């Protein structure tokens, strides 16, 4: 538990460092392409640090707004509030802010930078199909993300990945429009310039993928861990097991979920290729699995049943 928290804090730091490094690399690439020199690098690093800063303090609001989450006020959410309060007592956590996403697809996510500034969101679909113990299992899973500081890692990753992708995208776009005269200069300076330009271009194309892989690497194992520590709170594995089985049967897709926020949810909110086409080739499935933010539900259920 405590090792997990320490690991997550370390990971957040590493990720922010890698993120600043990636931004710097992209900046160097842009500098080479546009002959702007290295002057652009400090500017880019300042921008990167500013982005990291914003994502640390604002990421929960961004994630909630992106998913169209509304505060869960009103008597119809009494059970939701009560269950979270009970679990918070068991975990010794302050009660997070609670939100609801008006969406028929059953799903839930947690966000924030630490337990004192955390928020949970569930879809109306989840509240509708889950009974009391199942909902409790799901909420315990989300609270475990809060307690283990997973929310910090993932919300930062969401904003950082978005920022890297945005910068690389802008760079590539500028290249198509403003690249003409630069290319002539490159030709004058000879072969080295061309090679550098090609390298820079490759870097621009690959940066978003690198950022994404970084994001997925931290996300998948964590889900299994959150399942386990969620059950440690409720002391009742069948609740979460039957909730996951219900999620497995359901194939609705969350409307306001994007690739960037995918890893926040309890179940992958996006349509999976292997879900749609069971006859997919083995290689295709494996590649897809690498880009999945979540382990397959069957794997998670099996892990819980083995407890």
């Amino acid at each position, binding site marked *: 538990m405590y090792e997990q928290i320490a690991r997550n804090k370390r990971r957040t730091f590493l990720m922010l460092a890698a993120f600043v490094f990636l931004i710097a690399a992209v900046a160097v690439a842009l500098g080479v392409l546009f002959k702007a020199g290295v002057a652009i690098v400090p500017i880019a690093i300042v921008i990167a640090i500013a982005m990291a800063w914003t994502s640390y303090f604002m990421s929960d609001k961004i994630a909630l707004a992106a998913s169209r989450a509304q505060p869960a006020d009103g008597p119809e959410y*009494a*059970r939701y509030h*009560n269950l979270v309060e*009970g679990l918070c*007592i*068991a975990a*010794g956590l302050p009660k997070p802010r609670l939100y609801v996403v008006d969406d028929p697809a059953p799903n839930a996510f947690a966000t924030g930078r630490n337990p004192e500034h955390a928020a949970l969101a569930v879809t109306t679909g989840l509240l509708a199909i889950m*009974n*009391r113990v199942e909902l409790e299992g799901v909420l315990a899973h989300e609270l475990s993300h809060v307690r283990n500081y997973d929310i910090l890692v993932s919300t930062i990753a969401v904003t950082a990945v978005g920022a890297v992708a945005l910068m690389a995208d802008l760079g590539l776009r500028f290249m198509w429009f403003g690249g003409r005269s630069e290319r002539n200069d490159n030709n004058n300076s000879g072969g080295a310039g061309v090679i550098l330009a090609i390298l820079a271009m490759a870097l621009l194309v690959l940066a978003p993928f690198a950022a994404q892989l970084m994001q997925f690497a931290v996300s998948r194992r964590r889900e299994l861990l959150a399942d386990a520590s969620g059950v440690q709170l409720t*002391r009742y594995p069948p609740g979460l097991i039957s909730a996951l089985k219900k999620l497995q049967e359901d194939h609705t897709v969350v409307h306001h979920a994007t690739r960037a926020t995918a890893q926040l949810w309890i179940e992958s909110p996006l349509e999976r290729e292997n879900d749609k086409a069971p006859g997919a080739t083995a290689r295709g499935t494996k590649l897809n699995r690498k880009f999945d933010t979540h382990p397959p539900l069957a794997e998670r259920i099996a892990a819980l049943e083995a407890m």
Partner: protein
Amino acid sequence: MVIGIIIAAVVVLLVLFVVVTYNGLVKTRNRIDNAFSQIAVQLKRRHDLIPNLVETVKGYAAHEKGVFEAVTAARANAINAGNGTPQAQAQAENALSGTLKSLFAVAEAYPDLKANQNFLSLQEEITSTEDKIAYSRQFYNDSVLGYNNKIQAFPANVLAGMFNFTAREYFEGDPTEQGPVSVQF
């Protein structure tokens, strides 16, 4: 000179160790006390909800007098036991849980009552308060486990002995109560 520095360093490290460990022990001990008072808070909340519940059920099933009397008596008993030993308190609370179960069983026979919004929200409150009681006991026991481990393991046990940190007792639940109670809504 060198030896002096080494001795000074060792003394500083020792003092640091004592301060950090002592503060850690105090913190965990306070967490146990806080966890224990949490249990009392939730128990009190259940006591406060019961008169309301009894009144609501009475409105629909006035002739089930025996059940109401049993619940009211068990509640008064539990409130009195609050000043007694933890064991007596646990017994009285368990008896109260039993009478509440029979009250909800009675309610099953009255469809009008089961559709009453006030009754439904009271039922939700009582169920969740019972969950919270269980969870606060669980948290109390978890805290006691952490604390006992801390004061019994080397090297903190030396300090714990010196400053009189003693092991705490676990809260024992009702052995007949196993698994969650399934409530039909």
